[in-house]
């Protein structure tokens, strides 16, 4: 393995002096990095620090303004994913690049054969895929349509895409942002097998525990500059956080508050809507003022239905929903907003913001009929822009101004924008679905502290999250979703992460130990 000149494993990748500008913005500023065979490099940095940009340059999606790339000792021609693939570089993008309407096999095999062959070797492709999938424990169904796959399966397809082409350098851009904890654990298992095979990995993540569990080296980017590279073992969480953000980050702690009157009550709510198994099955839940209720659970156990119900997108088939003591009939989203529900949707790109529209337009999207923003059917643009400037200022949204298109913002800043829209009106109930997915630690602690401020100001918060640390840090009470049902509320100081894990897997019999007084018939999952 070791090469005579360097003493360590062979250097497989060398970036030298990479710079990239987008207009006035310097996204990458003279970045130099090296990567050795078998090494796992974690690339850290705030949202918008330039991590994805650097990887896109490496893979040939973007062309650097300055700097050179060398893979396995040979210079890599800029701007050509084809050349990168040929040099053994594989990339799993931050947002999946898979065609939903094509099969798994098609997505993986496309572009791997000479285009002018008269017949695709599908048999051979299938054998190779199944062989790889077995060797690295990445289970996939070759003939399934990608559109029908879960996020975890899509992730595996993305990795197999790279392995299928014999990647020797694998780039993973926030691979775990949308994975469940179990799926992430599976991914890191796979990574260990790959690196044992001599593969080099660059992975981008905002989750510190993953960085320490999986990487050999960490590199930190701040505002486009490489500010540090350390062996992972010689550093710690606080130091990395400080390097990334430029100041020390303290997680906010909820002040003890006694719960007020109920803002949201669900009584025996069932949502079936034609599915074999109800999405929500006779759910009871109460959220009170000054209270954060955390809903834990593996995604797909009714959380989306719960969120859609509370935002008025769907209606219950049985049972009733009450807000601030009055029963909601025939809910629709506008009605829910008027009743004081504010939502932070799970997917900020598809359900949260309109990327092609300006910041100010997005900020009034839920209230453009409010007399403050429109009169006689005509928008009051100046008022809306002024409002946008206030939100930008107060929530520290980094963007060129109210007229910037939102799709140019980095993920963290989009989330701050949604937060600003959500919190600007002093809502009574905040529905927060995965509010910190993909955010850097600075932004996470910011979002958390704003949610806790809203709680202190009298709002009730329904926090749906797959991140157990987040739930335990914020929630006063926790409930676990499993197969469309919710456990009774569990005080946050009476449950542990491992107990939550068991409940998430459906072992509801342990509820008896946590809540001795729970009646027997509520104690078993369907």
């Amino acid at each position, binding site marked *: 393995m070791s090469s005579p000149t360097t003493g360590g494993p062979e250097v497989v990748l060398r970036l030298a002096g990479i710079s990239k500008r987008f207009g006035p913005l310097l996204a990458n500023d003279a970045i130099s990095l090296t990567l050795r065979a078998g090494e796992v490099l974690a690339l850290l940095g705030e949202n918008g620090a330039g991590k994805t940009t650097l990887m896109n340059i490496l893979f040939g999606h973007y062309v650097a303004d300055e700097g050179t790339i060398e893979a396995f000792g040979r210079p890599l021609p800029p701007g050509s994913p*084809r050349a990168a*693939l040929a040099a053994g570089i594989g*990339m799993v993008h931050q947002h999946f690049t*898979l065609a939903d*309407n094509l099969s798994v096999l*098609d997505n993986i095999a*496309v*572009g791997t054969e000479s285009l002018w*062959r008269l017949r*695709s070797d599908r048999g051979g492709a299938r054998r190779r895929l199944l062989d790889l999938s077995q060797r690295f424990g990445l289970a996939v169904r070759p003939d399934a349509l990608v559109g029908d796959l879960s996020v975890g399966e899509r992730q595996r397809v993305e990795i197999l895409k790279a392995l299928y082409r014999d990647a020797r350098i694998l780039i993973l851009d926030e691979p775990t942002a949308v994975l469940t904890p179990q799926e992430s654990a599976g991914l890191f298992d796979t990574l260990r097998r790959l690196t044992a095979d001599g593969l080099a990995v660059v992975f981008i993540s905002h989750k510190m525990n993953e960085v320490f569990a999986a990487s050999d080296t960490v590199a930190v980017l701040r505002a486009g500059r490489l500010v540090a590279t350390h062996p992972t073992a010689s550093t710690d969480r606080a130091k990395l956080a400080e390097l990334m953000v430029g100041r020390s980050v303290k997680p906010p702690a909820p002040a003890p508050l006694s719960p007020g009157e109920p803002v949201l009550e669900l009584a025996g709510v069932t949502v079936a809507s034609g599915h074999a198994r109800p999405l929500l099955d006779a759910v009871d839940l109460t959220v009170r003022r000054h209270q954060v209720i955390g809903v834990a659970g593996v995604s797909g156990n009714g959380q989306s239905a719960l969120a859609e119900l509370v935002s008025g997108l769907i209606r219950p088939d049985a049972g009733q929903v009450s807000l601030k003591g009055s029963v909601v009939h025939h809910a629709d989203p506008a009605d829910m907003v008027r009743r004081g529900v504010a939502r932070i949707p799970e997917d900020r790109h598809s359900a949260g913001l309109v990327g092609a529209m300006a910041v100010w337009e997005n900020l009034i999207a839920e209230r453009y009929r409010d007399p403050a923003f429109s009169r006689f059917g005509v928008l009051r643009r100046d008022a809306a822009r002024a409002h946008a400037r206030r939100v930008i200022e107060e929530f520290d949204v980094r963007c060129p101004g109210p007229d910037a298109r939102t799709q140019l913002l980095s993920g963290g800043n989009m989330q701050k924008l949604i937060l600003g829209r959500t919190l600007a009106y002093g809502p009574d109930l905040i529905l927060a679905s995965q509010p910190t997915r993909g955010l850097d630690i600075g932004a996470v602690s910011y979002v958390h502290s704003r949610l806790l401020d809203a709680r202190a100001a009298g709002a009730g918060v329904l926090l749906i999250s797959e991140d157990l640390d987040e739930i335990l840090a914020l929630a006063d009470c926790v409930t676990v979703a499993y197969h469309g049902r919710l456990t009774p509320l569990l005080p946050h100081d009476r449950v542990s992460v491992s107990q939550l894990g068991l409940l998430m897997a459906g072992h509801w019999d342990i509820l008896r130990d946590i809540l001795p007084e729970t009646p027997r018939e509520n104690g078993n999952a369907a």
Partner: protein
Amino acid sequence: MDFLSIILDILLSAAFWTAVLRIATPYVLGTLGELVCERAGVLNLGIEGIMTLGAMAGWMAVYQGADLWTGVLVAAACGALLGLLHAALTVPLGLSQHVTGIGVTLLGTSLSYFVYRLVLPQASTPPTIVPFQPLDLPGAFAQTPLTYLALALVGVVAYALYRTPVGLAVRMVGEHPAAAEAQGLNVTAIRIGAVMAGSALMGLAGAFLTLSAFNAFFFNMVNGRGWICIALVVFASWRPGKALLGALLFALFDALQLRLQQASGGVLPYQLFLMMPYLLSILALVLVARRASYPRALMIPYRKGER
């Protein structure tokens, strides 16, 4: 005679089915061509003009002394050239596919008339050529070679799309160009190639009109057939086999209305019959195409390195 027995009589005559296949041929070719373009993500509203140019150029070549098959090749090549123009404007430059397509139609149509008048300034009755003759086969099989070519091309396009690497690449750039690029494909080149190939098929569709169905070129000859092909692609859910089915169905309605017009003996206004195939097509579209899953990147220009 009551209505049902008239219809039955028509449906049982071999001549009727001969007509159906003949009428269907330009629709089959045009729909295949449009389908190939759209599978790669490019809407080609230039089809009407490309068919007109194919009709004129193929005929002109033969009129100038070339043999019929050379005429066919000339029509395909002219189609591909106009396709290249459409692709050059919509793919690397990312201009609106609607606007460019309509421009290509206007250009193709007027260019055809212009060249025709340039070469034949004072022809009052259109000069004729000797067109393809039907093969000596029984009943409805007595078709010209171009009809058989069209039917064969359905199989060829289906095979190419679903069984060859280049077909997969075309479908990929129509579904998710960024993913195609990440797999090392050249999105621009593949889209341009697909639009040119599809447009060549449209050129063939035009050539059928002047080299097979008729023996002359005249104004407004294509007469909206291109627009029907656009609808047929949707009807076919972007699948070649279903495209054939849709073209046959439309031709069936068209042949039927012609005969019903004759059989009705002027009792009903003939415009009523003319409407029939279009009305039935709209109905079929409503019923079949509601759940059609179109290529996801259709009409969305792709620019490398943009968010």
